């Protein structure tokens, strides 16, 4: 059963205050984000809770949640690696580096390590093109990657 924490409740109140009283469904994405960041996924239970708060049907919440790539139905690892494969990174050799990363973690692209530490995804442009090739791990951008640097970054994460 999903329950928001007291800390979350304070955050939710702050979020709801940003929008006009009669437009509280604007808080849908921020609330889904809150859940995704804490739980590493958004469960049907959490969607129902959010729907109740915002007067939205479970089906509606589900339809919005499934539209956006940053919400996942199953838990992602402690470190979510988003590896940019778009044009500027492609021109700078991201394909080889992505393959190197998958091999290093011993997972398929899109997969999660057994210890739930790393999830590796292909990602579209992340707006760091002048630092290509690049990846984002949780909230941090890592630019000008080489295979050595990737090994070093992965090794530095607990």
């Amino acid at each position, binding site marked *: 059963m999903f329950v928001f924490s007291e800390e979350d409740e304070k955050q939710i109140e702050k979020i709801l205050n940003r929008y006009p009283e009669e437009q509280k469904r604007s*808080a849908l994405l921020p609330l889904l984000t809150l859940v995704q960041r804490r739980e590493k996924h958004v469960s049907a239970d959490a969607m129902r809770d959010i729907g109740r708060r*915002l007067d939205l049907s479970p089906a509606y919440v589900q339809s919005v949640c499934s539209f956006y790539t940053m919400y996942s139905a199953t838990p992602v690892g402690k470190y979510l690696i988003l590896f940019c494969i778009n044009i500027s990174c492609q021109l700078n050799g991201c394909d080889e580096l992505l393959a190197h990363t998958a091999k290093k973690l011993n997972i398929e692209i899109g997969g999660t390590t057994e210890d739930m530490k790393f999830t590796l995804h292909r990602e579209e442009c992340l707006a760091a093109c002048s630092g290509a090739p690049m990846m984002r791990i949780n909230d941090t951008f890592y630019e000008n990657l080489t295979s050595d640097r990737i090994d070093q970054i992965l090794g530095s994460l607990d």
Partner: protein
Amino acid sequence: MTQILFHNINKKDLHTLAVYEKEGGYKGLKKAFAKEPDEIVEMVKASGLRGRGGAGFPTGLKWSFLAKDVFPRYLCCNADESEPGTCKDRELLQKNPHLLIEGMILCSYACKIETVYIYLRGEFYDLCEIMETALEEAYAKGYLGKNILGSGLNLDIHTHLGAGAYICGEESALLNSLEGGRGEPRMKPPFPAVQGLYAQPTVINNVETLCVVPYIVNNGAEKHAAIGTEKSKGTKLVSVSGHVKKPGNYEVVLGTPIREIIYDLAGGIRDDNKLKAFIPGGSSVPMLPADKVDTPYDYESLQAAGTMLGSGALIVMDHTVNVVEISLRLASFYMHESCGKCTPCREGTRWMWQILQQIQTGKGEASYVDKLLDICDNISFKCFCPLGDAAVAPVISGIENFRADYDELIEKMAANTAV
């Protein structure tokens, strides 16, 4: 070289209110408040400023289209920077958040707006935190909140994070997303200036566009209009990426030859290779061959050359590239990002990707190129929003300018079959 946005971008701690003010920041507010709101709109019109997000629509004109006497009105700052090749707004948000806040305050005063939402792409969580800290500083100093500097203007600015959808950079999809919906575009008209956020009159401006406004208010419309070419006024941040020695964001006066941007600012092609092609305005605009490198970087010259200035992302490719490979990667991107609302875009982007995939992997036939062009023709201008039009740009321009790259892969296939 004249710089409006980047002259002090690497100043230490510029992101703090104290340093921003020391650099002359927030001086525009008093100047603006001494004038009538309409005068500021006229000023921005006279400055010649055009939207820096992609479409290049005149900013002052956009502001003047707001439905008369309908309130409340909203400003949405488009910080959903997702156009492949583009990373300029990220640098502004990270290093100079108060410049954007000042620009938003000035726009709000001019347009009689009391609520602003900054729609940041979900992956900009770190920038959202920087922006929130800057907003707190601005509230504490009285630049936001009630009766700002005694002007009678009440203004609140909120951040709002997206959650991973390229389409939300399109203004009507952004509004749907901000209202808690799927990021699908709306039918236009009504335009946002008449019925935007919550069906109220709404201005939607890109980060860079709003960041230019303090310069105009501080220095006058004429000073801004004196920079650039006849139809392209001011400067533009250009994100240079790909096969150059010094990729980065560069601020150039509109009308600067592309050759200067690639060879002087960005240091030339890697390994001193030969330039083959470049995309001047982000992945959604047609690519050009190397012989167009002397084209001036401005709206009208790029249009005359058959492409667009777009978001200002200059993607450079050297002679080692096969254009099919590039077009395939971009086709995959547009297929992934099509919201699925309109059939031509939803189905067409997938078909394009499938055919390009066949050609790239050596399974192409001579008829495939015409088939691709036919699909492009069936997507172009047949959807609610320009995503489909963007998706066909790299394919059509690739075929037109680099047909040999397609033929090479297809002929290789034909030769193999013959054996």
